[in-house]
């Protein structure tokens, strides 16, 4: 009987130890979320009227796609056509063409973007700068595909529209759609909504947002942090 009790105690101790060992703490999952830093003009134009000026706005996104406030350098390829100050204010001088560039040295490299500007009789924003588009594709084995456009409507609201060829898996729990500047994670992304349409054309009204604020449409299974797919906004 003593031996039996001893065995039971030993086994119970082993099991208790196993329980304590295996009632695990919360661990860490490290994700590779680095992206190339970018600096982006968020209100681009095609041509500037000779009798007007234009204030450029910009956005700098760091190596995880988060916006940072920086003081970039503005340059201009032809100061006889127009001038630009270090606040991004463009002043035309004469009809012609010049390249405006915005540069920022983040310590690791110089991030820049360039835009060609035509000085003409009137300021114009071409159609291509009022609407962006792209295609979402799956990055998982869950079905996701479809073309989309992003445009500002007459009320000033940003509208994300999916075409007829949109299809998404209904098998996933908690599928959400986001706009993001880092397609590797839903963290810091703009959450649009839980997905409720899984086939065909549909739209999302995003309210007053900038057309050039984000670089990607992103689909994530939110509860389980599983990336399903994305699409670059061209």
């Amino acid at each position, binding site marked *: 009987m003593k*031996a*039996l009790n001893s*065995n*039971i105690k030993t*086994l*119970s101790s*082993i*099991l208790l130890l*196993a*329980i304590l060992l*295996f*009632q*695990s*703490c*919360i*661990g*860490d*999952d*490290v*994700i*590779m*979320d*680095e992206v190339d830093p970018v600096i982006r003009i968020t209100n681009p134009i095609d041509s500037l009227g000779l009798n007007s000026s234009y204030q450029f706005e910009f956005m700098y996104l760091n*190596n*995880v796609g988060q916006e940072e406030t920086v003081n970039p350098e503005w340059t201009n390829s032809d100061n006889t056509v127009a001038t630009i100050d270090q606040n991004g204010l463009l002043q035309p001088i004469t009809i012609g063409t010049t390249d405006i560039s915005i540069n920022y040295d983040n310590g690791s490299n110089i991030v820049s973007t360039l835009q060609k500007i035509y000085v003409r009789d009137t300021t114009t924003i071409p159609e291509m700068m009022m609407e962006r588009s792209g295609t979402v594709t799956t990055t*998982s*084995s*869950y079905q996701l595909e479809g073309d989309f456009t992003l445009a500002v409507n007459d009320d000033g609201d940003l509208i994300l529209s999916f075409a007829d060829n949109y299809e998404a*898996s*209904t*098998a*996933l*729990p*908690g*599928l959400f759609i986001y706009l993001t500047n880092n397609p590797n*994670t839903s*963290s*810091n992304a703009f959450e649009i909504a*839980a*997905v*409720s349409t*899984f*086939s065909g054309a549909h739209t999302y009204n995003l309210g007053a947002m900038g057309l050039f604020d984000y670089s990607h449409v992103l689909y994530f*299974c*939110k*509860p*389980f*942090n*599983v990336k399903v797919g994305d699409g670059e906004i061209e």
Partner: protein
Amino acid sequence: MQRITIIFIFIFLASTFSFAGGPWPQKKGNGYFKLSQWWIVFDQHYTDVGKIDPNVTSGIYNTSLYAEYGFTNRLTGVIYFPFLSRNTMNNVISATTGETLIPGEALNSIGDTDLSLKYALNKPGSKVPLAATLTLGLPLGKDEGGTQNNLQTGDGEFNQLLQFDAGTAIAIGNKVKGFVSSQLGFNNRNKGFSDEIRFGLEGGLGLISNKLWLIARLTGVESLKNGDTAADVTSTSIFANNTEYLSYGIEVAYYVTKRVGFSAGYASAFRGEIIAAKPSYSVGVFYDLSK
């Protein structure tokens, strides 16, 4: 509004215990009792098309009591009671900045509990015993927890599993005894979950004068896919349905004394849909009154 919740790996657990005992009910007054720890940690899962995709590492740890007791020579009551169930989800850390992007969470509670009655359909001692088992899956666990409601210790639904078992004893020479059995069952589920066909094969060999038992299991679940999908419900709460799998498992049980022993188990899957794609493990201490 119907809402269905994720079931992921609980089925592995349920299957492990649902098939225990095979078609052999306990004799009147006899019983089998087990205190065990079962766990799975998974960072990938089978998708709806059977491929494997990554997910944030999640863990489920169940500490449970399992008991069989013979009310009569033909009727045995069975309970599986996970009195401590823990579901964890890891922190998501940026490799670039080291920042915690999404904090991990944990949920602790009682888990879903199974109550079963097993009835011998032919006379105990028959060469090929047959048994029918009715299992009631009691939703005592929590079907949502954490800030995203993505943690759970139960599926939130009351299911009824009717299962038939058949088996026979085998002998290899004079010293090695064993058994083989098969199971077929229908699991009626509610709250938008699809019903299921469950099946299994089990075989065991008793070595060292039946002190050491090696048991192998093959279990499967086929969903009838008659439940809800994300397109059918308007809730934004989490859910998954139509889980399927074909899994295999092994268990080693060793009698330290005539009645007391310990066991260890391992189970994995050949295939699956909407289910964890990592092995599960178990360890336990049992007391076998039938010896």
